[in-house]
C-alpha cells in the first residue's frame, strides 16, 4: 500500500477519529485507526465497538492496501510535518512509513485484518436531516443526560418519533428533564423510540458542527443508528432498554406562572449560588407579588440574596432548587425571556421559552 495525501485532509480524518478511539485500550487495536487505500481514495476508520466512523478522503493512490496504526501517534505526526503533503507506505511486518519533505517516520502498526469490522448498514432507511435543527435539539437536551453509569438507560437521549414527521428528544437524570420536539423531513419508520448514547450524540454534534448546513441523513436499523454526510458515515450502537415513562412526570400547566428576563435570572442565580450549602447549588426562590427573591445560605460561609422584579400576581411560594439545574436550562435557551411555572414547594418547576410550547424543561425542587 502506498498513497500520497494532503496533510489537511488526513488531519481532518484523524481529528474526527480522536473522539472515538479508546484511550483506555482494553483491546490495543481500538486505539488505532484503520487506513485503507483504494482506487477511489483513502478511508480512515475508527471504532470502539459502540461507535464507528468512516471518513473518506481524496488521495493519490499508488498501490491499494491497508494499515492500522495508533490514532494518536499518527495525528501528532501529521500535525507537525513540514510539508503540505505526505506519503504513507506499508512496510513488511505492518510497519507504516510516513514521508513528508525530508521528514521520515517508520511507525509500528498491527495487522489490518485484526481491526474489528463495523456492522453493515446498507439497508438502513435514511431520512434527510437539517443539521441546524438536530444541533438545536441536542443543545436543548444534552445537559439533562445522566452521568450515573449505574443508570445506563438514562445515559443517552430518547429519540421518539411523533405524528407528522415530528421527532421528540428527551433527556433526564431523574432530577430534571428536557424535552424538545421538532419537525423532520421524513418518517424514520421507527416503531417506538430509541435511546442514543451520550458519546454518540456528542460525536454527532461534532460532525454536524463541522458544517451545519451540509446535506446529511440519519436512519435506524435494529439496535443501531447510521449517520451519513458526504465523505463520512458513522454507525453507533443504541442503548438497549426501556426509557422511563417521561410523560407522567411532566406537570400540566402550573398554577403559578411568572415571566422572567433570562439573562437577569441567569446572572442572579449564578451570583447567589456562590453561597449555597453543601456541594449542591441549593438556592431558595421566594415568589411574591411582582418579586422573585433568590437566597442562599451556607452555615460556613454566610448568606446571600438578590431580588428580581417580575410580572406576577398570585399566591406566594417559597421553593428550593439546585441552581445548576436551572442555569443549564437558561444557558440552552436563546430567548430574552423565560416562563417559570410552579405548583407547590414539592412539585416540579417547568421552564419554557415563550412561544415555544414544544420545548419543556422540568426541574424537581430540593427540600430546604
Amino acid at each position, binding site marked *: 500500500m502506498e498513497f500520497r495525501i494532503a496533510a489537511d485532509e488526513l488531519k481532518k480524518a484523524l481529528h474526527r477519529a480522536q473522539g472515538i478511539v479508546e484511550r483506555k485500550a482494553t483491546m490495543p487495536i481500538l486505539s488505532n485507526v484503520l487506513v485503507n487505500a483504494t482506487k477511489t481514495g483513502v478511508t480512515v476508520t475508527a471504532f470502539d465497538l459502540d461507535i464507528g466512523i468512516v471518513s473518506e478522503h481524496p488521495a493519490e493512490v499508488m498501490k491499494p492496501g491497508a494499515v492500522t496504526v495508533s490514532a494518536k501517534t499518527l495525528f501528532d505526526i501529521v500535525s507537525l510535518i513540514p510539508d503540505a503533503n505526505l506519503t504513507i507506505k506499508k512496510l513488511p511486518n505492518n510497519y507504516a512509513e510516513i514521508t513528508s519533505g525530508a521528514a521520515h517516520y517508520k511507525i509500528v502498526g498491527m495487522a489490518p485484518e485484526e481491526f474489528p469490522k463495523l456492522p453493515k448498514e446498507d439497508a438502513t432507511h435514511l431520512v434527510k436531516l437539517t443539521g441546524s435543527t438536530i444541533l438545536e435539539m441536542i443543545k436543548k437536551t444534552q445537559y439533562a443526560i445522566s452521568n450515573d453509569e449505574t443508570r445506563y438507560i438514562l445515559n443517552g437521549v430518547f429519540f421518539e418519533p411523533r405524528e407528522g414527521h415530528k421527532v421528540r428528544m428527551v433527556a433526564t437524570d431523574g432530577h430534571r428533564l428536557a424535552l424538545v420536539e421538532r419537525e423532520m423531513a421524513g418518517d424514520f419508520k421507527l416503531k417506538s423510540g430509541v435511546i442514543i448514547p451520550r458519546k454518540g450524540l456528542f460525536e454527532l454534534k461534532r460532525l454536524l458542527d463541522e458544517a451545519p448546513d451540509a446535506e446529511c441523513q440519519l436512519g435506524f436499523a435494529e439496535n443501531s443508528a447510521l449517520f451519513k454526510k458526504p465523505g463520512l458515515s458513522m454507525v453507533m450502537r443504541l442503548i438497549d432498554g426501556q426509557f422511563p415513562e417521561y410523560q407522567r412526570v411532566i406537570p400540566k400547566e402550573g398554577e403559578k406562572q411568572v415571566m422572567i428576563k433570562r439573562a437577569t435570572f441567569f446572572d442572579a442565580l449564578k451570583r447567589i449560588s456562590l453561597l449555597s*450549602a453543601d456541594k449542591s447549588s441549593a438556592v431558595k426562590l421566594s415568589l411574591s407579588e411582582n418579586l422573585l427573591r433568590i437566597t442562599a445560605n451556607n*452555615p460556613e460561609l454566610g448568606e446571600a440574596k438578590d431580588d428580581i422584579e417580575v410580572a406576577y400576581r398570585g399566591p406566594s411560594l417559597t421553593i428550593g432548587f439546585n441552581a445548576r439545574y436551572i442555569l443549564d436550562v437558561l444557558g440552552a435557551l436563546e430567548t430574552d425571556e423565560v416562563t417559570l411555572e410552579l405548583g407547590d414547594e414539592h412539585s416540579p418547576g417547568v421552564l419554557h421559552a415563550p412561544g415555544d410550547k414544544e420545548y419543556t424543561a422540568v426541574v424537581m425542587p430540593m427540600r430546604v
Partner: protein
Amino acid sequence: MTRAIIHVDMDAFYASVEQRDAPALRGKPLIVGGHPQRGVVLAASYEVRPFGVRSAIPMARAVKLAPHAIVVPPRFAAYVDASEAVFRIFERYTPLIEPLSLDEAFLDVTGSLGLFGTVEAISTRIRQEIRREVDLPASSGIAEVKFVAKIASDFGKPNGQHVVPPGTSRTFLAPLPVSRLWGVGPKTEEVLKRHGLLTIGDVAQKELEWLVQRLGPSGQHFWELARGLDERPVVPDRDAKSVGAQDTFEEDLLGEEKLKPHLHSQALRVGRRLRKSGVKARCVQLTVKYDDFTQITRRLTLDAPTDDGQALYREALALLQKADLRRRIRLTGVSGQELTSGAGQLGLFAADEPEQKNVKLNQALDAIASRFGTKAVITADLREDDPDEARDGFYSEDKREAAARAEFERGQQGPRVIRDEDLVYVPEE
C-alpha cells in the same frame, strides 16, 4: 483564648430514673438490667456499686456479686424523656452542646459567661435545674479543655462538681494513672508502664520525641493530653462531621452471622441519630477491629444521601463481607459520613425513591420511639435487651469500652489503625 467547658454526667442515670419514679427503690441497691442470664447490667445504683457491680458486666455475674440487689427491667422511654428534659436545660445556657450519650454531654459556655456569670455558677445552675425540674442527680466537671472536664466530672461524683481552674490542668492530671489518658488501651498502658511511666505526670515530663519514637503519632497526642492540651472543640450533633455507633463486644466474635445483629443495631442507631439531627449521610464507613487490635475502616459513597438505618445496614453488611471474616472480631462500628443538611433533591420518578416508603416508616418509628422508647418496636434479629444499645445509651467506665471510645474520638489516627483506600468512589453528578 481560654475556654470554659463543662462536662455534665448524670449519676447512675437509668437507676436514678427508676428510684425517682418508685420511691420504694430509693436508698436501695438497684440494678437495671436485661435478662438475668443473658443480659448485661445497664445501670447500677450507688448503693450496689461497693459490691463491684458496674454497668456492662453480665447480669449473671452481677447477681452473684450482689444477691441482695433489686433488679428491674429497663424502661427506655422514661430514660429518653428524662434525657430530653436534661438537654433542654443545657440549651438555656449554650447552643454548643455535644452529646456523648443519653446522659452525658460537653457544653462550651465560653460565650455565655457574659450573660450568666462564672462557669462555676452556670454549672451549679444547670445541676440545680436538673434536680428541681427533672428530679435527678447530675455531676459536672469544669475545665479549659474537654479531656480534663471529662475527668473532673468523675471527681465531682456523685451529685457534685469539680473545677479545674485555668492553668492548673497539668497539676490536676499529674497524679492520675496513665490509663485515664484518652486512647490509652491495655497495650499502650503496658508499653508505658514498662518504661516506668505510671502517672499522667510521668508522661507529661517525657520529651515529645521519646514518646513519638515508642508510640508513633499517638505519642504526640498522649503528650499533649498529659499536659492538659486538648484543642478539640465542642461539636454540636448537627455540625458533626460524622455520626457513628460502635461497640466492643463482650467476647470476640467469629463469623458474619454472629456480627450481623450488632451491625444492625449500630446502623439503626446511626439512622436514628441522623434523623434526630436532621442530616443525611453521603458515605457509610465500617470499622472493624480484629482480636489482635488491628483495625480497618472501609467506606463507600451512597447513590443518594440517606438517614435510613436499614439502608445503612445493607451497605455496612456489604462492607463487612469484604473484611476478613475468618478472624475473630472484637469491635465493629458503623458511621455515616459527609453529612448533608436535610436539603434533599427530589426525584422525578417515584420508582427512583424506594426510600419514600422508609421515610414514612422511619417517621412512624421515631414517633413511637419518642413516646415509648427505642425498644417499643425492634427488628426481629435484635434482642430487647440489646447490650450494644444499652451501652450506647449508658456510658460506662469499662476500660475496654473506654479505650474503644477514646480511639473513636481520636479520629482513628492511632498507630494500630490501618486505613484502607476507599472501596468505591461515586463522583458527584
